[in-house]
Structures are given as structure tokens and as C-alpha cells.
């Protein structure tokens, strides 16, 4: 079987804020159609990693390639690079002064210079898929958190990006809205979208990932397919991290020990 080409390739990435080293010598690859899920403790540099990829942060060393082209070496026109990278943030960040449809069309029409009719058709198809076509003329303030986040995903998708980056997109949602957003991402995975996902939802990570990357203190500690990683983490740090998410059976065991 032929191995798919890498869409994103990071080699030896270094990122410092002043003296604080946040990412040290990190390398990873996301192949076409692959879903990589990055997990790790708070502050380990997951968001920073995503932000470096679409140029929201400058980097202090290493290289990032998109479809085999370095976006670091030489003169990078970041607005063109970003058009190929779909980014979704934890706080949705829809534009409050625009309707849902206007939010979605801004990138395709203004940044990519596409025709309104054609872009609208695509936007409506995506909205339909996430169940929000009837809300296309609503303003963000009229939507729930889960709805806003689904719109934010559609807004990124409508750019037809090479890769989607998700940064804890369910972290500020009420629990009953988490599912509707994760389902959208699962759907994208089924359709072969290339994705790099940061999440604290372990069950979701396990379901969606082709590969789990476990980060701690700015570097990759281990990376493995989800089944192997979750059943048999190799490193102590990963084991400790996964323990945080295990609550069941504690009392029973305690009683047993008495």
C-alpha cells in the first residue's frame, strides 16, 4: 500500500516566549487524510504548536512544510498560507457584526476572490450538513455555543483547506453541546479530511484519531495509534496523564482494600 504524502511536516520546531522555551525540538508529520490528535497536560504547548503552524506565532528554529513547501524559509505570504489551513479556536470567534452566512463567505469571497453564487452554494451545503441551514441569516449572538462552534467549523471548511486545525473546540461548551460539535468532526474524518486536533475529550480522541501524539513540556513524549496508546501507554508521564481521566471504580476498590 502506498503511503500518502505528508500535508504537514514539522521538523525540529523551537518556540520561545522571551526566555521561556515552550516548544523544544518538536517534529511531526500529518499525511493526507490522516487525523492526528494531540493530547497533553495544560500548558504543555499544544495551542502554541497550532498557532505556529498558521503563523500566529513566530518560531525560533526548525521548519514547517505545507505540501512539501517550507512556509518558514524565504519570504512567506502568510495570508496565502493561511487560506490553505483551516483553524478553529476554542472560543469560536465569529464576527459579531455579520450574519452566519456573511461570516462564512468572508474568507472565500474576499481572501480567495470567489464568486458569491458559487461560494454561497458551497456554504449552504456545509451548513446543511451541520444542521444549521435555517440559521444562515442569524447573527452569532442568536446562536448557542454549540451552534456557533459548528458555524466556525463551516467557516474554516469553506476555504477548502489542505488541513484543519482544531484547538480544544469543545472546551468552552456546555456538556450537552459537546456531542453535536464532535459529531461534525467525526463526519469530517470519515470523509478523509486531514486534521490536527487538540482535545481533552479522551473518548473522542480515541474514536477519531489515526494517531495520538502525547505532548509534555513542549515536546512529544510518545505517539502511537489510539488503541495502543490508551491501553498501553509506554511512558510514565502518559500513564499519569491518562489516570487523571479515570474515576470509575475508585470507591469499590477502596472498599475492597479495607
Amino acid at each position, binding site marked *: 500500500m502506498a503511503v500518502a504524502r505528508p500535508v504537514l511536516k514539522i521538523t525540529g520546531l523551537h518556540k520561545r516566549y522571551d526566555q521561556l522555551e515552550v516548544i523544544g525540538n518538536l517534529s511531526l508529520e500529518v499525511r493526507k487524510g490522516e487525523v492526528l490528535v494531540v493530547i497533553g497536560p495544560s500548558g504543555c504547548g499544544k495551542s502554541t504548536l497550532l498557532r505556529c503552524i498558521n503563523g500566529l506565532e513566530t518560531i525560533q528554529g526548525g521548519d514547517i512544510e505545507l505540501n512539501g513547501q517550507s512556509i518558514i524559509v524565504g519570504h512567506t505570504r502568510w495570508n*496565502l498560507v493561511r487560506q490553505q489551513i483551516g483553524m478553529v479556536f476554542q472560543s469560536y470567534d465569529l464576527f459579531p457584526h455579520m450574519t452566519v452566512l456573511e461570516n462564512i463567505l468572508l474568507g472565500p469571497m474576499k481572501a480567495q476572490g470567489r464568486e458569491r453564487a458559487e461560494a454561497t452554494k458551497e456554504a449552504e451545503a456545509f451548513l446543511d450538513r451541520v444542521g444549521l441551514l435555517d440559521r444562515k441569516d442569524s447573527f452569532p449572538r442568536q446562536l448557542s455555543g454549540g451552534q456557533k462552534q459548528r458555524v466556525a467549523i463551516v467557516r474554516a471548511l469553506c*476555504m477548502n483547506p489542505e488541513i484543519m486545525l482544531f484547538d480544544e473546540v469543545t472546551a468552552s461548551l456546555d456538556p450537552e453541546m459537546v456531542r453535536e460539535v464532535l459529531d461534525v468532526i467525526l463526519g469530517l474524518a470519515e470523509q478523509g479530511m486531514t486534521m490536527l486536533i487538540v482535545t481533552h475529550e479522551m473518548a473522542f480522541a480515541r474514536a477519531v484519531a489515526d494517531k495520538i501524539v502525547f505532548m509534555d513540556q513542549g515536546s512529544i513524549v510518545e505517539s502511537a495509534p489510539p488503541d495502543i496508546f490508551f491501553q498501553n501507554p509506554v511512558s510514565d508521564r502518559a500513564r499519569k496523564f491518562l489516570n487523571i481521566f479515570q474515576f470509575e471504580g475508585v470507591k469499590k476498590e477502596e472498599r475492597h482494600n479495607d
Partner: protein
Amino acid sequence: MFLGIETEFIAKALPLYGQAAWRTVWVAACGVALSLIIGLFCSLARYYRIPGLKSLAAAYIELARNTPLMIHLFFLYYGLPRVGLTLDGITCGVIGLAFLGGGYMAEAFRAGLEAVSRAQIESGLSLGLSRRQMVRYVILPQALAVAVPAVAANTIFLMKETSVFSIVAVADLVYVFRDLIKEGHSNENLFLLTIFYLVIILPVSILFNRWERRLRRDGIGH
């Protein structure tokens, strides 16, 4: 006579005040419009820290805000002719008001620009918008909405500041008032002067209030 006010005189003076009010409105409108443009450029120069322009804008803003309009007008009307540039009173009024207002409007817009969150900007950048597109579609619409209350206050302030224009021979409301009061009827003249200022300023105030309420309802702006 009505409440001690001589209605005959009022009827006679009304057209004079009406004309002056119309002139005042025009000069104020031109001055405010120009001050909005100047303010926008200065605030953007500072917001984007454009080398050279940034410090120039900062210096101008301080100068405009910390000197009285009367001095700007004296300079334009009596100072410039000495270097060979003679402007009529109305032109001086418009330029003086724009100079003063530009400084205030720049501060209003700056507050608006600073209110646009980092997250909104990164959200726009992530869509691959260029710098210019960011300003036009993401930053300015939100910044202007936030700036509306301050712009409203500045506009009303500038309209009231026109009351010193008579020193450069603009036949505005105060000019007519001063002219007519020489022949008495001080109560009637004061009454007319007050009414006419209210007539030109109150609608502006009400319109801005409505606009602010609508922005608040829409959850944009403050």
C-alpha cells in the same frame, strides 16, 4: 406680547436667525466630516504604529486637544495672511473645527480600535485575509461601533464650539445675536439664540442616541 416676549420682534428676527442657523449647520457638518476623516487616519497611523506618521499623529492630537479653538481660528484668519494665504471666515471655521475635532475623533477611534479583541483579529487572519481586508471587514466595523458614543459626544461638542466663529466674521448664530442685541430686545434675542441652538443640536443628539441603542441591542459596541 407673550410671557413678556415681544412676538413682533421675534417674527422679524426669525429669518435672520434661521439663515445663521443654516450656515452654522453647514460649517459644523463640513468640520465634523473632515474631523472624522482626520481622526480615522490618525488613529490608524497610531494603531498600526506606522513609523513617522505615528509620532506626527500623536503630536497633532495633543496640540489639537490642548489648545482652544479660538487660537486655531486666530492663527488661520490673522496669521496665515502674513505668509500670503488669505482665507475667508467660513473656510477658517471649517478648517479650525476640523483641526480641533480631528484630535478628539482620533481618540474616540483609538478607543474603538483597542476594543477589537486579539481573538477577533486572529480569527480574521486565520481566514487568510490581507491586512487591508482585515481593517475593512473585521477591525473597522467593530471599532466604529464601539466608538459611536464618543463620536456622538464629540460631534455635539464641535457643534457647540461653532459659537466662537463670530470672531472670524462668520455670520453664525452668535454673530447675529451680537448684531441684533445692540438695538435692545435682549430677552427676545437670548430666547431665539437658545431655541436655534437646540433646534440644530437636539436632533443630532437624538439620532445618535437611537443609533447607540440599536448597537447595544445588537450586542455590538459598548
